[in-house]
């Protein structure tokens, strides 16, 4: 049970109990609680299934269960990066800073999920391969992705002027996404050349038990819900920060 409550607490703890002044912000608050609550229920159910119902994997034993977080975290991250890329295009064509805040929030949350992916993968690798890290195309491409979007956050931090920050980070978001596509394509092209201990189950071929594969997709839903509630929270912070900034500028 203690394992089950851990992720739930961490998603709930991020919700501040700040004063909700306008009716709009009350709705947003409720939305955050609704998504996070739904995620909590689904996650509790999934954790029960993963630990109590599904048996150990034949060759890997108990550690294979990490895949139920490893793969959905990666999928969540990539869905996020692509949505943020689309929003960046929307920002560039509409010049509405609302989209910039949302894209920034999504990229930031997706970066966290990408880190979850790489950390869980590393733990799995330590048990199965005996090493934390190897410079395999797949691992490297994920690290590159993390570095690009870490650069995105650095770039945002180093620009004060909101519209300039929005334009430049939107451009980087688009460039970053294209590069991920190229990196991932190159893995496909070179897979036959590198049959080594890469995560072949991630491709979902016929090598996996259908009930296990279903559990992966089922766990994607709560992770996406957590991501969405964090994004709403983060986007609101972002637009509040912008509001404070513009008020400060007006005073000075």
């Amino acid at each position, binding site marked *: 049970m203690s394992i089950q409550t851990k992720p739930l607490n961490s998603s709930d703890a991020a919700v501040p109990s700040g004063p909700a002044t306008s009716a709009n912000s009350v709705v947003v608050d409720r939305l955050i609680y609704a998504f996070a609550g739904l995620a909590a229920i689904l996650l509790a159910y999934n954790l029960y299934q993963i630990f109590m119902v599904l048996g150990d994997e034949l060759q890997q034993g108990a550690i294979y269960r990490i895949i139920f977080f490893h793969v959905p975290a990666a999928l969540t991250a990539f869905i996020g990066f692509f949505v943020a890329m689309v929003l960046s295009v929307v920002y560039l064509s509409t010049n509405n800073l609302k989209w910039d805040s949302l894209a920034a929030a999504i990229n930031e949350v997706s970066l966290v999920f990408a880190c979850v992916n790489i950390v869980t993968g590393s733990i799995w690798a330590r048990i199965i391969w005996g090493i934390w890290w190897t410079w395999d195309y797949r691992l490297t491409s994920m690290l590159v992705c993390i570095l690009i979007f870490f650069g995105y956050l650095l770039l945002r931090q180093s620009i004060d002027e909101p519209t*300039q920050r929005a334009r430049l980070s939107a*451009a980087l978001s688009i460039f970053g996404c*294209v*590069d991920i596509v190229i990196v991932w*394509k190159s893995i496909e092209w070179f897979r036959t050349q590198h049959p080594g201990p890469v995560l072949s189950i991630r491709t979902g071929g016929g090598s996996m038990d259908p009930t296990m594969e279903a559990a992966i997709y089922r766990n994607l839903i709560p992770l996406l819900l957590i991501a969405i509630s964090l994004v709403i929270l983060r986007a609101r912070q972002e637009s509040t920060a912008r509001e404070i900034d513009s008020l400060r500028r007006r005073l000075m």
Partner: protein
Amino acid sequence: MNGLSYAWAIARKDLAVEFRTKESLNAAGAFAIVILLLFSFAFDTASDEPAELAGKLLWLVFAFAGALIFNRGFAREMPNECLDALMASPIPAASLVVGKAFASFVLLLIVEAVSLFACGIFYNMNWTRRLPALFIVFVLATWGLSIVGAVFGALTVNLRLRELMLPVLIYPLMIPLLTGAIELTGALLTNQPLTPDVLLWGRVLIVFDVVFTSLAILLAEAILLN
């Protein structure tokens, strides 16, 4: 056609300024030689096949030296508000970026030629065996580096930590290109046959060039607008 001739005008201007002052050429060239020297301490140069190492080494040198050149590209226009003047002129932003990229491309190719020559001497390596193929690889990869460098040079030109932010942003983006260039250069320098596996990296280079050049043209206006 009009956009291209504007780009050519920008590139010619930049190259004329550069060949008169030799500002970034000297700096990048010297930097490349210094790094080649430093690498000799990091690796066993007495190994039987230095050419194998040289392919990897050279592209790291080019990426480092390139960052110096790309930094100067747009920073050159900062004094006297030249960048604002260029943006106010009828030159489209895309032509400005492509022109800058072409100037960097020529400068980086010169630095690459010098480094290759120096590498041949320092590491006792025969690089002339398959020169035409090597030249094609260098042109494709250098254009990729230059267009990314020009776009991000424009993107970072107004930042506080410009010199620091540019490498942080461009190196992760350049990884597929650098990997491809390293694989192909390694195969050519060690005089191995170009198997389909190695040739696929050539496709990576071409795709990278096409995609990033089109994106640079599309996003130039958004990046340079002030």
